[in-house]
């Protein structure tokens, strides 16, 4: 039934004369027309979906660099190839960008002419009636109605206007009135709003990645382990291409308290970090934040990502010189079984020569269990410190920290151990230490386990265009709803004086036709209701007014 009239896209502007046109220009013009066609948009959208898939299958550097490293280890031949193709950074790869840039070019090319059209159609009155209303999908044949044509036309126009149709009434030489009306401009407007909003989102995301930055930092509780915002202070950071290290906002944080509560099963229940904040050298403020509720600073947001324990270790070397370190151990499971290493490169310095002996450096490596399980398993039984213990192995020799290679602070250098330059001096079984314990090594030096401090892992981020992206997304949603809910349709009424031989004097003949311009199954009902209101004089007069 209802004929669907959907413009594929606005007709191209008046075709240029075909003869003698420059072939290059013609090719360009054709390509542009192809690119901005609905079909191409469809294909590109589809490609976008397909291009997004590898990013969920392959590990992504931005999401989990460790898993990329694992992939390299497991597929040494394949990984470099995948890497060259951008497989570990799909969403920043050239081919992904090619797809969405083409799509958005197509979008601009498609939306601009429609925008112009829409503005124009908002300024022009609804078009006059087609000659034969009977050809339209909806039609009411001539029906008599009392009242002179001018009067009836005014009535009909009022009925339509009350239903928010844009309405125009005109009379021709024969005294026939035509009432043209159109409704549903919001559909196209909403659709345009949606597509323009998509552009706004893209621009926002782009600028955000240029001008945004982020860093991750592990922050141990205590005034002596505070942190001030600077690239060098981060364990890992990344600045957008338009951000200089000096641009980072100045603030300092120091964790004064961290509370975590857990279910009896060990599942986390709540976290709360309390920090002292100074911004731009101003006064100190005490602030609290938690998971899902970040610390919002000026041009930086601090998010709580994780937690753990940092054992406090005092090492006293063979010459009686001691050093104390707070060493974060990284959790490896939900019960906070944690791994870590303590390195003491500047120990065993002979007071006689005052020279550091690289072969007498000391390192410890092992696990920390906040709750040792009764069954002797090497894993923690509960994430809180119910019966904490540290299990360490001691090494002496060259730690390899002076080699200049970047190395983990959570493990000793494997290569140094393998080459024998760093040797185990405490035996095969790790030594168990509970808080307060002192351990005397073979050369008389001692390690004392003083206790632990909590630490938190933080992500500090700033994205200047977040608000634009959100605004774009919301505008897009509104446009989408208008577009999907709306229906564009036109109706026409032809009101003519009755044939001269009709007995009924002074009446009019009303004919009507309706055209849904988009797929609109409910149009028949609406049309029926409209003509009903227009033909029944009383109905028209009463309609919308209080009785």
């Amino acid at each position, binding site marked *: 039934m209802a004929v669907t009239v959907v413009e594929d896209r606005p007709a191209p502007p008046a075709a240029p004369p075909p003869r003698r046109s420059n072939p290059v220009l013609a090719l360009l013009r054709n390509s542009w027309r192809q690119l901005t066609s609905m079909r191409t948009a469809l294909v590109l959208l589809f490609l976008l979906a397909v291009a997004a898939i590898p990013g969920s299958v392959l590990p992504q550097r931005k999401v989990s660099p460790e898993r990329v490293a694992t992939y390299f280890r497991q597929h040494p031949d394949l990984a470099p190839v995948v890497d060259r193709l951008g497989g570990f950074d799909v969403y920043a790869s050239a081919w992904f960008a090619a797809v969405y840039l083409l799509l958005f070019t197509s979008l601009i090319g498609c939306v601009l002419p429609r925008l112009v059209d829409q503005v124009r159609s908002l300024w022009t009155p609804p078009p006059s009636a087609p000659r034969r209303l009977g050809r339209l999908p909806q039609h009411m044949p001539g029906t008599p109605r009392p009242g002179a044509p001018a009067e009836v036309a005014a009535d009909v126009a009022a009925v339509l206007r009350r239903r928010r149709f844009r309405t125009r009434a005109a009379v021709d030489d024969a005294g026939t009135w035509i009432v043209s009306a159109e409704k549903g401009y919001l559909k196209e407007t909403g659709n345009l709003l949606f597509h323009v909003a998509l552009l706004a989102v893209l621009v926002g995301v782009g600028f955000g990645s240029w001008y945004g930055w982020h860093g991750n930092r592990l922050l141990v509780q205590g005034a002596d382990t505070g942190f001030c915002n600077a690239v060098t202070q981060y364990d890992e950071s990344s600045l957008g291409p338009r951000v200089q290290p000096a641009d980072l906002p100045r603030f300092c944080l120091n964790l004064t308290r961290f509370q975590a509560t857990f279910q009896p099963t060990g599942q986390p229940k709540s976290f709360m970090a309390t920090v002292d904040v100074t911004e731009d050298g101003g006064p100190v403020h005490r602030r609290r934040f*938690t998971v899902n509720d*970040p610390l919002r600073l000026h041009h930086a947001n601090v998010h709580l990502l994780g937690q753990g324990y940092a054992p406090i270790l005092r090492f006293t070397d063979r010459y009686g010189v001691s050093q104390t370190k707070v060493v974060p151990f990284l959790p490896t499971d939900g019960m906070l079984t944690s791994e870590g290493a303590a390195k003491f490169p500047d120990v065993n310095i002979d007071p006689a020569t005052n020279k550091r002996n690289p072969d007498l450096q000391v390192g410890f490596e092992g696990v920390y269990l906040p709750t040792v399980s009764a069954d002797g398993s090497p894993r923690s039984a509960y994430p809180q410190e119910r019966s904490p213990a540290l299990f360490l192995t001691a090494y002496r020799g060259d730690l390899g920290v002076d080699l200049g290679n970047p190395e983990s602070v959570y493990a000793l250098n494997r290569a140094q151990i393998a080459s024998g330059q760093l040797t185990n001096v405490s035996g095969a079984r790790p030594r168990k230490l509970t808080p307060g314990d002192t351990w005397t090594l073979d050369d008389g030096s001692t390690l004392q386990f003083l206790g632990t401090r909590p630490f938190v892992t933080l992500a500090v981020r700033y994205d200047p265009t977040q608000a634009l992206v959100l605004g774009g997304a919301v505008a897009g949603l509104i446009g989408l709803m208008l577009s999907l809910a709306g229906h564009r349709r036109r109706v026409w009424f032809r009101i003519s004086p009755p044939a001269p031989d009709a007995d009924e004097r002074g009446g009019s003949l009303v004919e009507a036709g309706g055209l849904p311009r988009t797929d609109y199954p409910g149009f028949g009902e609406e049309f*029926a209701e409209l003509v009903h209101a227009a033909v029944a004089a009383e109905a028209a007069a009463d309609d919308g007014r209080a009785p």
Partner: protein
Amino acid sequence: MAELSNQLMALTVLAYLAAMVSYAAEYAFGNRSRVGRAAVRPARQLVGAGAPTDAVEVPGDLPPSDPASSAPPRTPLDRGALFGKVAVGVNALGVLLHLGTLVTRGLAAGRMPWGNMYEFILSVTFVGSVAWMVVLTRRPGVRHLGLFVALCLVVLNGAAALVAYTPVGPLVPALHSYWFLIHVSTIIIASGILLLGAVPATMFLIRSGYDQGKRRFPYTLGKRVSAAETLERLTFRLHAFAFPLFTFGALIAGPLWAEASWGRYWGWDPKEVWAFISWVVYACYLHARATPSVKRTTATWIALLGFATMLMNLFGVNLFFTGLHSYANAGGM
């Protein structure tokens, strides 16, 4: 309470199974002419095309009487219709049991019952089931789809219970957020409606194949469902309704929550990637449907592809990939 929830869950699946059998019985026994009439009976919206002035008088929700067919007298022996009524009744009972399952689960956990994959799937199928009841009251003519709706419900709920069952547990702190509630509830509602939308989409494809004279197995099912046009329109309406909801849930509320929780509104986590893919594919569907040169069957295939990506997100991503969203397992933040 958790135990009760599990028992209700079993009963729910049984009820849907029973509904499925009854729908199937209607399908099998429905005498040709009745079903035929139901199939051509226009949906309420189409009323008035031929007789505009009468149409306005048709009251609210009743199906329009079909003036063209001289209705044969209804005999009590009309077993097909009887089975159909029974099916709808049993189906409604299933919806109540389903609701009971979710409520008891929520009570047992002391929170909304959508904290893990099992509960999530249960909620999605519940929405699909309720949406089906709504469609049924508004367009009784499409009752024959019930067989396939019930089939979907049985399969998905069964899969949830077998593959994804998780004992009742509290939420991890990352999920304590009102954006989480909004995000998950809108996605559940959208997914439920998209789930339901996949049924008329499938049947439309089968029916159009049948109309083209294909008589091999899946197409033979098309013999007794509603007219292709009705199915196609229902498919579109359901998708057009669900798409903005999905957009809001996945692309607005989700990123708002992610920003508060992880500091970035979008990070291409596998779950996010697949939500994006589903969204783009459904956008493709809406585009394809609005492009005159693309056949309606092609567009509908795209809608089904969209549903496949939703399933991938629901099952595949939780099971195969690790990411920040893998909140089905305990521990961590």
